[in-house]
């Protein structure tokens, strides 16, 4: 274990303290941050956030009541009360406000008023003033009625066996399967690239032979794989840590209470799928790294089994619309597409237990085969400098060898 630990620590430190790693670590959050900033600026430039004025001739809004938990006077579009319409008109001409409303004197009976604006006010301004009016209209009701009126109806759709349910407006429930799939892809790509590079570099540096004269190939590969996984997970933890900080900041402004009630059973299934899939992909990366001669060539070959991971996203509408249809079932049984396809299906429908069992079983068998395959590839390829290992050699056929 000590040797595995030493290899793991060396591998971890070697990659984490590289400029390349720090760049890739920071580039993704930086890219996302810049994109978010650009989008925010674009949206903000499109939205008119100038205050909206109102003249209340009915006296109905003289003591405005806010909706519970909301403060209209401190919202994005401020509401300003004018005593006379002339003052509101002056403010409009002076471009201090984007529009003003005049509430008719008989508003309580007629529900009439008028909007005065040079250009049509923004949706946000209109919506905010409407909410403000509505809040005042129901201000005399008891608090629990106000809450019920303002929250509106909520439709809950539940599967027959009660395993899955969707609550109207629960955007997290809809997004969760995609987010889980995305996290899996990020984890695979963050780690597998390093893994491939680590094995190929060992051959390029000619260090393999020296190392296996000190420790067993099994210890070497275990240490390397653990070290690289730690590197990949460091990257993920930093990214998700930053995302969490962002969410915490966002929670100050948006209600994120639904995040706390994530379906545990669903997440357990996703984890059960991802572990063997992760092992399978990692082992295949090692196999390719051990048999080929340079990183670039190896990356081209690995796309053969990293690209199928995306296939479920191409068929996402078929999977959502027909979660138990032949395409969805087929994709959730094929080991390379199973982790994401099954995760998406499970997010939208109840899946027969035998299908989950078969899918998991196939994945575990394939992961075991991939580990065996990687071991054989590593044994055959570790001291083959500048030479690939052919498929015939893998299968044990006698081929022309080179003596050293």
């Amino acid at each position, binding site marked *: 274990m000590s040797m595995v630990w030493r*290899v793991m620590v*060396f591998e971890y430190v070697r990659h984490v303290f590289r400029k390349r790693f720090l760049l890739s670590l920071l580039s993704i959050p930086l890219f996302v941050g810049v994109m978010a900033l650009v989008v925010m600026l674009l949206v903000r430039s499109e939205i008119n956030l100038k205050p909206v004025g109102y003249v209340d001739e009915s006296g109905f809004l003289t003591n405005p009541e806010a909706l519970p938990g909301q403060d209209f006077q401190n919202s994005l579009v401020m509401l300003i009360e004018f005593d006379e319409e002339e003052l509101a008109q002056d403010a409009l001409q002076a471009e201090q406000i984007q529009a003003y409303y005049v509430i008719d004197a008989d508003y309580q009976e007629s529900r009439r008023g008028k909007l005065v604006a040079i250009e049509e006010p923004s949706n946000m301004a209109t919506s905010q003033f409407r909410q403000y009016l509505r809040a005042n209209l129901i201000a005399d009701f008891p608090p629990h009625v106000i809450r019920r009126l303002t929250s509106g109806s909520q439709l809950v759709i539940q599967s027959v066996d009660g395993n899955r349910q969707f609550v109207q407006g629960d955007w997290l429930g809809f997004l969760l399967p995609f987010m889980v799939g995305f996290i899996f892809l990020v984890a695979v790509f963050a780690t597998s690239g390093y893994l491939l590079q680590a094995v190929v570099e060992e051959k390029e540096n000619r260090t393999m*032979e020296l190392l296996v004269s000190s420790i067993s190939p099994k210890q070497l590969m275990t240490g390397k794989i653990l070290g690289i996984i730690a590197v990949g997970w460091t990257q993920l933890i930093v990214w998700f840590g930053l995302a969490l900080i962002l969410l915490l900041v966002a929670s100050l402004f948006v209600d994120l209470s639904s995040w706390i009630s994530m379906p545990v059973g669903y997440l357990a299934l996703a984890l059960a799928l991802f572990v063997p899939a992760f092992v399978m992909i990692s082992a295949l990366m090692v196999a390719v790294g051990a048999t080929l001669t340079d990183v670039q060539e190896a990356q081209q070959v690995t796309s053969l089994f990293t690209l199928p991971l995306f296939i479920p996203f191409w068929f996402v509408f078929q999977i959502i619309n027909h979660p138990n249809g032949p395409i969805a079932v087929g994709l959730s049984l094929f080991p390379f597409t199973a982790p994401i396809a099954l995760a998406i299906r499970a997010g939208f429908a109840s899946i027969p237990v035998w299908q989950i069992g078969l899918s998991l079983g196939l994945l575990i068998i394939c992961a075991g085969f991939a580990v065996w395959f990687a071991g054989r590839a590593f044994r055959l390829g570790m001291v083959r400098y500048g030479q690939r290992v052919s498929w015939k050699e893998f299968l044990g056929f006698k081929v*022309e060898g080179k003596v*050293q």
Partner: protein
Amino acid sequence: MSAIEIDRVSKSFGVVRAVDDVSFNVAGGEVFGLLGPNGAGKTTILRLILDIFKPDEGQIAVLGGPMSEAKKACIGYMPEERGLYQDVPLERCLVYLASLKGLSQSEAKSRVIDYLERFDLITYRKKPVKELSKGMQQKAQIIATLVHEPELLMVDEPFNGLDPVNTKMVKDILRDLRESGAAIIMSTHQMHQVEELCDRILLIDHGRPLLYGEINGIRKQYAGHSLIIRTQVRLPSLEGVLNVESHNSTYRLTLSSEVKPPDILHQLIAKNIIVERYEIAIPTLDEIFIQVIQDGKETE
């Protein structure tokens, strides 16, 4: 007890027989030369000893028994394909390799620093390996091989890329290790280094053993048909001499198989020739190497 005992070992890769019925042993306190032309199977034999390859036939005993993971800590190996982590600082790279030989981190660091000072590399300790010259990297590779003071040392072309000063230093280190009882296998093409350092050799070609034994014995075995004579007078014709090569006042005489060296000395004395030097010409290992390999090709 032999540090290495190889008994009738064979290994094939596909249809190529890389090692064919090879047997030899290496004792502690001995430098053993493993010789042969390119592609002869030398590196394959070293990899078989290290258990990187498994033999198809025969037995290999290392330090008293089958190779094991624990024994790797007692073995120093410098492969033909030199390898260090190019983007890692020199000291960290060497400390890591030493730690894989079972040294503690502090012990590894202290020994590496000693060796870096000895090899005049201490000022480069923080530099990535790729920034060092080829010769410096070769010295670093030697440090990685020796730092854990192995009982069994296997070095493949250890003097490649070294200047004369460092070549001498490495030779002295190898001699010191031999004195301390370590067994050393040296695979090289530099025959003068073999003559200088090795006690015994094994010469192989196409995986087959061609010559095996003590160097002096082998050289004597290939001697006896030539004489070296130095005289200031012109050498007269002598009976039983097939060929004469001269260089300044020194003559190399090739004798027929019926004539013995003392017969020539008798003839010279009888002819009143003043002989300044008379010796049986012992062939160099280079000459033996070429002759044995050529003989091997002719018999194929």
